[in-house]
């Protein structure tokens, strides 16, 4: 049958669109590609895509072929006699109405099946993750574990992940090409999506609905881990918090003043009460170097704490900036804008408006020395 094995399906690309297949073949050069699905939902979408491509290719060859043939075959010369004046042909016209209809049935049947499969509630006990789109970063919450993180979603391999999604401000779209396709997120309604990761690894996704000036810089990573590692990660995230809570209390007067200043700058949305105080419980367990201690102080003084929380467990909601509890270990900063090197992080802290113009984080007048201290401090949060 024309819709046969996977091999013939891949081969159907070859005939008309050779260049295309060359590009499609080396999927590893395209880390965000939709053509190399690595999860069930993406595979449903990909199968349907290839079904449509196959038929489209067939129609393309036949119709463009007929067109090009007719152009060469019936090319006239000046002085040719008038060709036969044909006005139509009912039988031919019926045939070319019915055949496309049949082809559409061949596409429509798998489409409708896939629609229902895609909308089915995933079986088993899925891991629920809440996704909240913000201008221009992603917040991820694990209600089961009362953990919050940002821009880097850790998931266990092999388990269905059920996403309950919303937006903090405007409409965004959560797009994870290798696992799930995309689903829009709205400020006033919950939308859902599910996926499962088959292999451990780091995968990339990004916002797909235009959401303002930095829509282009609103990416995220998904880190798929073997279940045991994921459990380890969960324990680790909780332990950060436990150790932090045991640390010395920061000066709450400083904290709230600094937070207030940032909010005025930004005409910001309301901050959850107690967020700053929570965030202030932030001493890392290991012995502090003087630089780290200075960084900790600056984190309060410069107002960072007004928008960013450093606790993952039972973290405050409604903050303007991403949670930084494990920022030291993330592979990217500023929602996929820069690789998380010390240099980049320092530059970002000093000049957010240059790196990501229009972002809600203002230039805070951080000196080079201060940035280094802040980086040292943030590196301890991993």
């Amino acid at each position, binding site marked *: 049958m024309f819709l046969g094995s996977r091999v013939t399906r891949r081969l159907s690309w070859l005939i008309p669109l050779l260049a*295309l297949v060359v*590009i*499609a073949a080396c999927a590893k050069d*395209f*880390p*965000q*590609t*939709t053509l190399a699905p690595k999860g069930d939902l*993406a595979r*449903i*979408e990909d199968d*349907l*895509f290839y079904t*449509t*491509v196959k038929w*489209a290719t067939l*129609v*393309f060859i036949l*119709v*463009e072929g*007929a*067109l*090009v043939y*007719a*152009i060469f075959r*019936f090319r*006239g010369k*000046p002085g040719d006699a*008038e*060709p*036969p004046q*044909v006005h*139509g042909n009912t039988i031919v*016209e019926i045939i070319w109405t019915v055949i*496309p209809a049949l082809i*559409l049935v061949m*596409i429509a049947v798998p*489409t409708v099946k896939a*629609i*229902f499969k*895609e*909308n089915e509630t995933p079986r088993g006990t899925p891991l629920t993750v809440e996704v909240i789109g913000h*201008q221009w970063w992603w917040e991820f919450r694990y209600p089961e574990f009362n953990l919050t993180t940002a821009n880097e979603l850790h998931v266990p391999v092999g388990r269905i992940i059920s996403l309950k999604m919303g937006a903090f401000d*405007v*409409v965004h*779209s959560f*797009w994870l*090409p290798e696992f799930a*396709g*995309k*689903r829009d997120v*709205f*400020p006033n*309604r919950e939308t859902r999506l599910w996926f499962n990761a088959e292999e451990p690894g780091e995968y990339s996704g990004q916002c*797909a*609905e235009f959401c*303002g000036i930095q829509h282009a*810089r609103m990416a995220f990573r998904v880190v798929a881990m073997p279940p045991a590692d994921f459990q380890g990660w969960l324990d680790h995230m909780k332990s950060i918090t436990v150790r932090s809570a045991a640390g010395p209390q920061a000066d709450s007067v400083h904290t709230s003043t600094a937070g207030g200043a940032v909010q005025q700058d930004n005409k910001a949305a309301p901050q959850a009460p107690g967020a700053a105080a929570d965030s202030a419980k932030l001493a890392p367990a290991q012995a502090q170097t003087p630089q780290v201690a200075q960084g900790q102080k600056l984190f309060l003084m410069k107002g960072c704490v007004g928008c960013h929380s450093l606790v993952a467990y039972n973290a405050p909601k409604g903050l303007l900036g991403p949670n930084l509890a494990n920022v030291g270990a993330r592979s990217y900063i500023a929602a*996929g804008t820069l690789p998380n090197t010390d240099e980049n992080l320092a530059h970002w802290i000093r000049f957010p408006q240059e790196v990501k*113009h229009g972002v809600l984080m203002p230039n805070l007048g951080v000196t080079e020395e201060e940035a280094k201290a802040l980086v040292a401090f943030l590196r301890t949060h991993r």
Partner: protein
Amino acid sequence: MATTAVGHEALAAAPGEKTGLWSWITTVDHKRVAILYLIGATVFFFLGGIEALLLRIQLAKPDNNFVGPEFYNQLFTMHGTTMIFLAVMPMSQIFFNYIIPLMIGARDVAFPRLNAFGVWVFLLGGLFLNASFLFGAAPDAGWFGYANLTSKQFSPGMHVDFWMLGLQILGVSSLAAAVNFFVTIINLRAPGMRLMRMPMFVWMSFITMILLLLAFPVITVALILLMFDRFFGTHFFVPAGGGDPILWQHLFWIFGHPEVYILILPAFGIISEVLPVFSRKPLFGYAAMVFSGVFIAFLGFGVWSHHMFSTGMGPIADTFFSLATMLIAIPTGVKIFNWIGTIWGGSLQLKTPMLFALGFIAMFIMGGLSGVMHASPPADLQQTDTYFVVAHFHYVLFGGSIFGLVAGAYYWWPKMFGKLLDERLGKIHFWLQLIGFNLTFFPMHMVGLHGMPRRVYTYPKGLGFDGMNQMETVGAFILAAGFAVMLYNIWKTWRTAPPAPADPWNGATLEWSIPSPPQEWNFPEIPTVTGRDPLWEAKRQRGGPLPEPQRVSGQGIHMPAPSYWPLVTALSLPLLFTGLMLASKIGPWGIFIGVATLFFGIYNWLFEPSYTSIPGVRGKAHH
């Protein structure tokens, strides 16, 4: 309508054509209105093209800093808005205005002053929208302006104000034209031209008018709700106040999908005229062509939510909108097959208009096929909002609409301006456009499937987007070069080409029976039509080409009197909306001035005599 004939015995002293700026300001002649559309649409088309080139330069390499994110977002918003509302739609208007009355054997349109009003509103609306650049406040929320990004909270500047008010102004223009041509086609056809004898361009235009009449009120309502949200603090689309951004999406696409057919149906019509003439063979399957057009338009109102599959509407709605969308492929396929049936067995003359018409078919097939691909909601969950969709709609709207409109431009240019465009330059233009177009837009399919979202001002290294984006930028400049050749062609032939004959292509329709360019009254004698290709029938009866038609004096023909009230009335709209925008700063005075101008214009328009007995001279009201 004046049907009294003057006869071909030309009177000794034929009055000269009216000239000068004032004659253009007060014109109600459908052919001059068409030329005003031509000038406006060309300027805006090149503006939109320059915007596109800037976008392509910015995307030529990863992490580029050629234009910042702020300006980039303005550029892509204005590129889309301009190309749709200020270029492709008014380019269709050129041909509605110039060609429809000639094709149906009429001396003018049903409402000549409404026609003039329409073009002035379009020109002023386009200026209003583009004036935003002067204030650094060009619209920046995308051409579909999704709520709630457009709310006062997230778009505090005047950017969105310019967009929503500019589109309201342009909507008035479109509705005026739709009413006018709907009535013109119904009422002013020459004796014997039954509906099923109308040229296909007139049929497709007629369907377009119905779409305009039904679709534009919806976007107007949506824009008014948005205006109330922004100016008067209502919450139609503001979630914090209980509103719903999804409401905007539904309203927008109930307009937006028929809008796609508003953009493409006129091009369907144009190539349905060009293909038979250059195949020397009548259009294949006339009735099927008519009904497939009607069917497309009807279904076009039932598929809007295929723009919203990613919003998660649930399996039932997804299934309905998916199947309805797939159904459209059937009548569209019928059209494509009938076009191929038209050239099949013909004697093809590959003149420039024909090349563009054939290019249209080849490119539109691609756009149609990728359209069927994302009619499948699960597949669309990957494709929507990526460059795959950008590729798709450019294959439809550039490979389709623009190729068709350019075919029409080369085809009717001699009729409109009395000069044939140069064939060699025309062919260079065609090949540059075909190659440049595919180089620009084909890689977009790939880069989209490989994960590049649309509307991003930049992309990072390492995602594999670099090479294809570079190719697209090169293609865009080749495409631009094609249009530069067309401009040069116009300039060159304007100066040096000999006058074109009345019927340079062996045309089949009535416009080729009168001098190029036609005189103000088009037909000294209203023709009688007995078939679908009236001019071919006349030539066949005569056994050879018809004699070159003579220019006549037009003595005794009643034509509409010139009027400047349409322009005055049109001016009131930008005045009114500027007043609205400035109301918080200067108080309501601007609004008062706008409303006063509106009533002043309409009042004088109503009480002005509308016909003159001698061309160019004001006379008594005819009716």
